[in-house]
């Protein structure tokens, strides 16, 4: 299972699969064991596998567990790739409990991931991102939340400040005054972390078809 899946994520010949069947593998402590190491497609694929399995949205700072599952089997990242990830700076350790580590994806790691992975293996997340009045913003959220629910993917919210020319015409203040803390913790992408140029456009033919198919199934 792991071999087939990883081959789809990272078709690099001659490399061992860095996902190990958990009951037969003893995870060891992870640490950066080299001062300098390049990021690699293999490291990126291991983190992407965790993101897909644990349904984490890829973004700078995303928390990616070492443990993951696929088709009912429990896996863990092997010790080597975990240390490579830390050595290359693709991620840092957010939680260091041996065997249950969590990686914090760095900004450069995020860029590398997007560049190196086949985007067809990634799942969309719907982002509501409006900079105008409250009604339009909440309307976009409702659309995005509905589509996320229907297609079983994530929903995220970006809440920019109101355009200066609109000041005084629309009652839009900081997201913290409008939404509950736990809702924001689960969904908000800070404006400063949001970079449209790093998004894969929905206009991409494959992405469009995937959403359409999901909506047809949801009818």
């Amino acid at each position, binding site marked *: 299972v792991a071999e087939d899946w990883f081959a789809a994520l990272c078709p690099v010949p001659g490399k061992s699969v860095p996902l190990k069947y958990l009951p037969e593998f003893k995870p060891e402590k992870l640490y950066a064991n080299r001062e300098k190491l390049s990021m690699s497609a293999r490291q990126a694929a291991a983190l992407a596998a965790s993101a897909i399995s644990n349904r984490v949205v890829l*973004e700078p700072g995303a928390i990616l567990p070492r443990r993951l599952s696929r088709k009912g089997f429990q896996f863990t990242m092997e010790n080597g790739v975990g240390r490579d990830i830390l050595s290359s700076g693709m991620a840092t350790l957010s939680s260091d409990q041996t065997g249950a580590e969590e990686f914090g994806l760095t900004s450069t790691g995020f860029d590398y991931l997007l560049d190196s992975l086949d985007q067809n293996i990634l799942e969309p997340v719907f982002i509501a991102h409006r900079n*105008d009045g409250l009604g*339009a913003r*909440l309307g976009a959220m409702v659309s995005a939340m509905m589509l996320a*629910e229907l297609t079983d993917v994530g929903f995220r919210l970006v809440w920019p400040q109101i355009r200066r020319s609109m000041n005084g015409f629309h009652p839009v203040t900081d997201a913290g005054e409008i939404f*509950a803390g736990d809702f924001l913790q689960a969904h908000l992408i800070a404006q400063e972390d949001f970079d449209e140029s790093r998004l894969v456009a*929905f206009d991409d033919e494959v992405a469009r078809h995937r959403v359409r198919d999901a909506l*047809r199934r949801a009818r």
Partner: protein
Amino acid sequence: MISVQTRHVLNPPIKQLLGVESVGPRMAEAFAGIGFSAPMEDARAMAAGVALPAGDVTAIHLRASDIVYGPYSKRQFFGHKVIPYPLAIDLIARLRAGGTTPLLFGEDADLLAHLRDEHGAYCADDIGDRAGFSPNQNALFDICLLGRCGRIIGGRSGFCQLGARIARIEVETPESLYEADEAGGIIERHLSDPDASPLISGKQKAFAARYAFVLAGETIARDERFWRLLELARENDPENVFLQFVHACSLYEAGKASEAETMLSDGLSAGISTLYFLLRTTDKTVQWGTPCAPYMDALAAQARAGHPVAALCCAIHFTATRQDDRAERMVAILGRVSDPEIRRVAARLLPQLSS
């Protein structure tokens, strides 16, 4: 996972894919899933619990703000988000005659008071004990209250559309209720009323006139009614440079190029020229482009026909919007102009000519 944006997702016909009857309930469910802050939840809960006026309630969402009073009063587009007061008066009368209770939502307190006191509508602002509510709370309260109405008449504003999603119904727009000609007649009649209430502001009157253009799909005055409406708009909002620009474009079209040239020249010669800034406005919508964009082809034709101020306006606009070839052609026309005053103004406003 990777991110896509909602604006991309809204492109495909979601209603077609999901079925119209299924979208409303799903969106209402999604709205219920938004985790608001405690004060906002208070507003949502209050809106759910307050008593609506008795009877069969139809909401009329008027809107106003930036489109009537702010930067979008200097654009033709976005007008379809607002219901002008003459149509509001007409709608209230029709609804009441049919035994329905009109409930008004909007932002222009004076106009709302007039429609309530003189025409018998109810105002959402009068519902609920909202003392101490923040603007955000008031807005959410109104959205949720809209969501309780059995019928909603409004423009294509996000606020109104969201209320309709919560109510699981579709907004009925003025376009769907009035023919453009009929609406134009109603608007003209109210604008010509010498006894109109002082609570109806000049900006509201000017917007109503502009709205007649929007509904008819007109950008300039071509017949008598639209000339009268344009004049009424200018009377009521004399500082509105966009109306001045439309007026000049209408004069060119009517063959009165000399008057048009004078009007634009006066606008550009002013110390801090708002016409200059209007021509240089580059923020645009996908559909309409910049505020001046719908007028520029006709204005360029006037420039080619030998009208130098039209050429100057075009050169300013094309330079700002990076239409370099077109700007160059207009600058070439200006190079052949002998009028020293126009040459002086052109040199002041166009970087290509200043050296």
